[in-house]
């Protein structure tokens, strides 16, 4: 059974806001006749996943990832909406572990939702994409970095707000190339996501002339927190290399590599220096305001999925405002036109790649308490835009969207 639920707190916050908006409208437009309010209904679909074993109790398990970014986006859209006569509503559906997401999605489509943000796993998104296209709804992927979704399994009405694995791996490789740290030791986990990230790392290494001098799989399945000092030096002994790249998406062992390797080498990948869409230490280009607004609302820092969800809502807001239409076909055409651009606190305008609907965006390379660099650097030249040096470029992509 699908549990339909909107968290009460959010509901209250949203309602409060609406009241405020009506108030604003009255104050600001007391002397002005204004176009009647047009409602834009959006939905946010969360597929609950089994919680992986926690490496430590340091980071709380988030129960409101993504949706909070979307709620903030709706607030921002509605502030604009009070001047344009649009009103945005957000419905949150959470599908418990083991339940059928497709059923929940179909219900949203039946209820007339045309703009649906999905925090679901890659295999689910593939199914939803077909339904979205058939129903002329726009689907926004805010959490899966799967390169398959941007290539063979791309779809006409699916838009990827979060950077792909390939974009993130390319960002790492570009910085390593700049630093001339071109010999990598790869340590990977056994999870399917680890495999995908490993594939992306290998593709980037090849693309930027980086050598994988050694590749090892972390096969230990015990909790390494007491034994890391003894095991990791032995595990990493052997080849000489410049940096150790780790592919441990769930964070089962990667954190223990730092300062425990046989040779004194930096760690990059899923731990150490990490490629991120958003990071709490990001403060340039007005990002501080975004960080503050989110923190004020939620009481924790924004993460990649929150940021991507905010972007998804803002994409719809921006396209509806400028295309002056709430028709999903017209909104989609506008999103893919050269008139569309979105400000996302990354110093450049964000636009969509027409060949696979990936949002073009810089990738932040962060350590736990600082941003080391924002990639790509403009020295990585590209005939279209230097942003397209990250991820699958038009000629490389086997997405058939432009031909479909």
């Amino acid at each position: 059974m699908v549990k339909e639920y909107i968290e009460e707190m959010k509901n209250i916050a949203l309602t409060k806001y609406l009241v405020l908006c009506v108030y604003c409208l009255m104050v600001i437009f007391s002397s002005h006749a204004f176009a009647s309010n047009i409602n834009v209904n959006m939905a946010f679909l969360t597929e609950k996943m089994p919680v992986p074993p926690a490496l430590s109790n340091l980071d709380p398990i988030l129960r409101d990832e993504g949706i909070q970014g979307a709620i903030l986006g709706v607030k921002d859209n509605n502030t604009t909406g009070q001047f344009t006569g649009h009103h945005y509503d957000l419905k949150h559906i959470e599908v418990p572990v083991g339940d059928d997401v497709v059923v929940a999605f179909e219900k949203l489509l039946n209820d007339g939702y045309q703009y649906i943000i999905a925090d679901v796993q890659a295999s689910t998104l593939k199914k939803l994409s077909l339904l979205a296209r058939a129903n002329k709804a726009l689907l926004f992927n805010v959490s899966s970095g799967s390169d398959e979704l941007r290539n063979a399994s791309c779809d006409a009405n699916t838009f990827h707000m979060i950077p792909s694995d390939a974009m993130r791996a390319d960002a790492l490789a570009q910085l390593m190339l700049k630093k001339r740290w071109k010999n990598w030791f790869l340590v990977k986990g056994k999870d399917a996501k680890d495999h995908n990230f490993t594939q992306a790392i290998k593709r980037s290494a090849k693309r930027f002339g980086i050598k994988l001098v050694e590749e090892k799989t972390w096969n230990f399945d015990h909790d390494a927190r007491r034994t890391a000092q003894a095991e990791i030096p032995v595990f990493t002994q052997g080849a000489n290399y410049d940096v150790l790249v780790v592919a441990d998406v769930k964070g089962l062992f990667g954190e223990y590599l730092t300062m425990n390797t046989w040779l004194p080498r930096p760690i990059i990948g899923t731990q150490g220096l990490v490629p991120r869409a958003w990071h709490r230490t990001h403060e340039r280009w007005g990002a501080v305001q975004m960080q503050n607004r989110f923190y004020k609302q939620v009481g924790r820092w924004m993460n990649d999925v929150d940021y991507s969800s905010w972007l998804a809502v803002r994409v719809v807001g921006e396209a509806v405002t400028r295309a002056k239409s709430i028709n999903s076909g017209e909104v989609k055409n506008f999103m893919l036109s050269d008139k569309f651009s979105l400000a996302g606190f990354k110093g450049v305008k964000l636009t969509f790649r027409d060949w696979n609907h990936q949002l073009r965006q810089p990738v932040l390379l962060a350590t736990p308490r600082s941003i080391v660099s924002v990639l790509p650097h403009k020295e990585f030249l590209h005939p279209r835009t230097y942003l397209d040096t990250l991820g699958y470029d038009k000629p490389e992509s086997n997405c058939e969207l432009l031909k479909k």
Partner: protein
Amino acid sequence: MVFVTISFADTLYITLEKDNALAVVDGESGKLIKTVPLGQRPRGLAFSKDQALLYVAASDDDTIQILDVASLNIVGELPSGEDPELFRIHPNGQWLYVSNEDDNIVTVIDLQSKEAITEIAVGVEPEGIAVSHDGKWVVNTSETTNMVHWIDPADQTVKENTLVDPRPRAAEFSVDGQLLFVTSEIAGSLSRIDVLTKQVLSKLHFKIAGVDKELIQPVGVLAHPNNKTLFVALGPANRVAVVDIKTMAVTKYLLVGQRVWNLAFSPDLKRLYTTNGVSNDISIIDVESLKVTKSVRVGRYPWGIAVKAE
């Protein structure tokens, strides 16, 4: 030895975002005279009508500091609300309009009583403020809502809104008051808006050979009193565009320091000064020949600039 010059001496007051200080520079020689400590992250600044006081927004201290220009002592502060960045003073010398980015409001402060007299709700992340020379309009740009909000100072309410390109930053009225110019940082464009109808008449998209279009991010804009020329700071493109107001065409790009933010003229209009955030200097441009003559190191992250005739 005595020199007689026809140009007026001027003093530049420059906020240093990272040094939490004010740099005082002699405009003609470009010499850094002194540096005065300020509050946290100082940005926008402006003189009182009689130029006896200097107001400086200390963004991270959530206040506007008041400096006595003669002594450069801090003599008071204004209740600016949170995170003040840019502000302008109404020609009546009494009202100061400041945007509060985190709260989506513009605060109006009475300079005599030093009290906030009203708050005006605007779009998300209000940024630039401009006041028309006749004092009839105050405009505010909102960076995430992407609008220009037209505030009528008579009753301090928003009367109209104009949608512009993404991330509008600074606004500037033409000298004759008929046009409003607004820079859009992310779109890399300049909008020319008719003040009467509040409609965008035309847009200029900046293009510089050899500079990636993503790096062209217009911020500060300054109108020359001749009502013919406009100067636009292009941020990380490290250039100032010279724009013909009538044709909305760029006549020249001037290479200045890195991350150019804001602009100001010398009182005799012979020199144009730019603050360059990343290269930590100011560029001095000869307005007649349109040549960059000098760059002066002033401190870390120079941001705002105000000029006073001596």
